[in-house]
């Protein structure tokens, strides 16, 4: 691969989120990378599996623990053209969750007359493995 191609062609970046929010900072600092990374016009996807699915859960209220509720930021990702949030079905099931327990996250599709579409894409574990195998850069948090 030449240096030039390297710079010209967008790379596929996958951010892998496996940890619950608030107990550790990884979820928040992962999101900070995603937001900065959005400016680089790469092909960005986010994966939520294992305890990472809790990052997207609806109704997070953090005043009692004295920490900032950063969950609204996931809803703003569409504005940064981050529109592929892959959530693993098996991870939800093991945790007694369905996609209805997650936040409603949408984006406006510029290729489809700005129609509002869901950013969360439910995938099986096997599909998640395919998505992971289709990346150039995988960042794990």
């Amino acid at each position, binding site marked *: 691969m030449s240096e030039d191609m390297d710079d010209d062609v967008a790379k596929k970046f996958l951010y892998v989120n496996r940890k619950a929010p*608030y*107990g*550790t*900072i990884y979820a928040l600092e992962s999101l900070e990378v995603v937001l900065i990374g959005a400016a680089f016009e790469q092909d960005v996807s986010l994966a939520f599996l294992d305890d990472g699915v809790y990052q997207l859960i609806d109704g997070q209220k953090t005043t009692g*623990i*004295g*920490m*900032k509720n950063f969950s609204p930021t996931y809803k703003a990702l569409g504005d940064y053209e981050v529109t592929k949030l892959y959530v693993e079905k098996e991870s939800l099931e093991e945790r007694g969750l369905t996609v209805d327990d997650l936040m409603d996250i949408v984006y406006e599709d510029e290729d489809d007359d700005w129609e509002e579409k869901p950013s969360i894409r439910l995938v099986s574990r096997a599909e998640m493995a395919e998505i992971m195998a289709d990346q150039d850069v995988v960042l794990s948090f």
Partner: protein
Amino acid sequence: MKLAVLVNEGPYTHQASDSAYQFTKAALEKGHEIFRVFFYHDGVNNGTRFTVPPQDDRNLQVLWSELAAKYNLDLTVCIAAAQRRGILDEGEMKRHGKDGNNIAPGFRISGLGQLIEAGIKSERLVTFGD
């Protein structure tokens, strides 16, 4: 009742310091005595005054320092753990020939014996970690 608190992780990365702070504050407000808060492992990183957290976030070092000032709380940072992680007071700075120090107000550096003493002198010891 006389309680002691052990904090094993640094601020922000793990919730341990937040939980320990909320617990300590609640105990003090209920009238319990906190014999000592001991910071061990990465917990020593709570005691640096060099942190600059985002303005819309809590500042854990300041929260601990303010709690110490209000309740005359003993915040002890383990000396051996602090040396590995770069937390220095004036004395440690001079002893190791370093060119600066970063200990925050209300924190002091002392030996591991202070943790054992806290276990002996307190009626309960509560640990917060990873």
